[in-house]
């Protein structure tokens, strides 16, 4: 089990990195990752090949993903155990953010003046 502070070193993940790790739950090559990320993010994240190539290299170096095979010159990557832990740590942080944001919005809708600075 990797140390928690070690995992926090990677956080927060950029939106691109988050979705790349998410997509690599199954072995995929670059273009497969692009298509999957665009689909699951509902079109909000479209990865450029330069961005993706750089991300593959640094994530592999950090041990968050690993190459599993090569198909017609295309490298296929998959999430490692450490990568999964980093992803889980990020999701944990997002849940805290989401709960805090939701609590604020709920408070605002019940009393419209709440949360606004006094004039």
């Amino acid at each position: 089990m990797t140390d928690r502070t070690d995992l926090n070193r990677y956080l927060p993940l950029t939106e691109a990195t988050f979705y790349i790790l998410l997509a690599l739950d199954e072995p995929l090559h670059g273009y497969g990752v692009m298509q999957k990320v665009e689909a699951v993010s509902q079109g909000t994240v479209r990865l450029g090949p330069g961005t993706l190539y750089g991300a593959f290299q640094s994530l592999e170096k950090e041990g968050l993903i690993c190459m599993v095979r090569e198909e017609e010159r295309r490298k296929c990557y998959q999430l490692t155990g450490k990568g999964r832990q980093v992803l889980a740590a990020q999701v944990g942080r997002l849940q805290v953010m989401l709960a805090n944001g939701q609590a604020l919005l709920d408070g605002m809708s019940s009393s419209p003046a709440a949360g606004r600075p006094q004039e």
Partner: protein
Amino acid sequence: MERKIVRKFNWFWAWNDDREEAWLEEMSRQGLHLSSLGLPCIYYFEPGAPGDYAYRLDFNTSYKDRANYLALFTDAGWEHLGSLGGWEYFRKLRKPGEAMEIYSDNESKIQKYNRLLMYLMILFLPLVVIFTTGRPDGSLMIYQAARLVMFGFIILYLIALLKIWARINRLKKS
């Protein structure tokens, strides 16, 4: 009708890759499409129907993984035109709804310029070492001339490093 390749010379500084992209796009709009590159600073164009193409330059020096690197770009719809001194030239026809950037976020774009900066540093540092450890009292004409040329290169490198560094900072702020 025979289509003749048009050869043009043009010089762009390493920190002006966006200007080079804009120039290539303008050439395509005039019906001259980049077909290959050569030294020194030669661009070969193929005449054809004017087209609205996006040209993008990437900086990549990982030659070991080149086939995988190029496959990723071509899968994403980018045509590879050639490479020169670590720069890779790509082209894609502009269409509505099509992604036209090879770098989709600022962080990765900064990494591209960081790679360029590192590459230039590797060339720059030995030059400085040779220059500063050389005998300053050498009287041979050829020796003095070599020192002068080296000094010119050092100044050029300094400008390039500063320009790229400034560019990285601009990207970090935006």
